[in-house]
C-alpha cells in the first residue's frame, strides 16, 4: 500500500497539470489518500501521506514547494477524516472537501510566505475548481474502492 501511494505520488509529479493558474491540478495523489482512508487505519494513512509529500518534495520539488504540499496535504487530510467521521457523505463528498481544503491550505501558505493578502482574492475560483476536481477524483476512486482487494483490507480497520 505504501509503495502504491508513492507510485501514485510519483505519477502526479511526472504529470503536473497546471490549467491556467497556480494551485489548479487534478490532485491524482488524492486518489491514494482517499483509498487509504477507507482501507487502512488512520495512522497508516497519515504516515504514508507524510512520507509521500516528503519524498516527492525531495525528488521533484524545492524547499518552498515542500511547504505548500505539506500544509495543503495535512489540512486536506484532517478535513477528509472529519468529513468521513460524520458518516453523512460518501467518498465523493470526502474527496470534494479534501480538494477544497488543499486549495485553501495552499492559498494560506502563499498569503503568509509572500506577505500579500491579495493572493486570497483568487480563493473563490479555487473553491469552485477544488469542488470540481475533488468530485472528479471521488468519481474515479469509488469504483477502485469497490474492488475486491480493498474490501479485504477493510477488515484490518
Amino acid at each position, binding site marked *: 500500500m505504501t509503495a502504491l501511494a508513492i507510485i501514485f505520488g510519483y505519477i502526479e509529479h511526472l504529470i*503536473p497539470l*497546471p490549467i*491556467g*493558474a*497556480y494551485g489548479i491540478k487534478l490532485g491524482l495523489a488524492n486518489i491514494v489518500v482517499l483509498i487509504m482512508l*477507507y482501507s487502512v487505519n488512520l495512522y497508516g494513512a497519515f504516515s504514508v501521506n507524510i512520507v509521500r509529500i516528503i519524498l516527492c518534495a525531495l525528488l521533484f520539488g*524545492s524547499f*518552498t*514547494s515542500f511547504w*505548500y504540499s505539506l500544509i495543503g496535504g495535512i489540512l486536506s487530510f484532517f478535513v477528509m477524516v472529519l468529513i468521513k467521521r460524520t458518516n*453523512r*457523505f*460518501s*467518498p*465523493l*463528498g470526502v474527496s*470534494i*472537501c479534501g480538494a*477544497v481544503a488543499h486549495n485553501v491550505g495552499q492559498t494560506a501558505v*502563499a498569503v503568509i*510566505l*509572500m*506577505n*500579500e493578502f*491579495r*493572493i486570497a*482574492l*483568487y*480563493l*473563490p*475560483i*479555487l*473553491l*469552485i475548481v*477544488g*469542488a*470540481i476536481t475533488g*468530485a472528479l477524483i*471521488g468519481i474515479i476512486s*469509488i469504483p477502485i*474502492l*469497490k474492488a475486491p482487494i480493498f474490501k479485504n483490507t477493510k477488515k484490518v480497520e
Partner: protein
Amino acid sequence: MKAIKKSDIILLICIILAGAILLCIFSAIFLKKGQTVVVKVNGEEYARLPLKKDTELLIEANGGTNLLIIRDGKAWVESASCPKQICVADGELSELDPIVCNHHSVSITLE
C-alpha cells in the same frame, strides 16, 4: 455505503455557490480599482509600477528570473526560468487573479 449520497450533491452545490457569492463580493470591492502593479519577492516589496505606463521589468528572485511586461494597461509574465511555468500560463494580471510564482517566491498583484 460507498454509493453517492444526496448530501454529496448538496455539498458540491453549496461549495460552488459559496465560491460564486465570494466572487461577486470580491468583484464589487476590488474589480477595476487596481492601477498599480505591485511586485513582491519573499514577501517584500520589489517594485511598484503604474499600469498606465508601458514598461518591462526583469524580476531577479531566488536564483531565477521572471520577465514582467506592462503594455496597453495590461500586465503579464512573458517568460520565466521556473520549471512549472505557472506564472507564464496564468496570463493577464487582474485584481482577482494575481500572478504567483511559487518557485521564485514572487507575487504580482494589482492595487
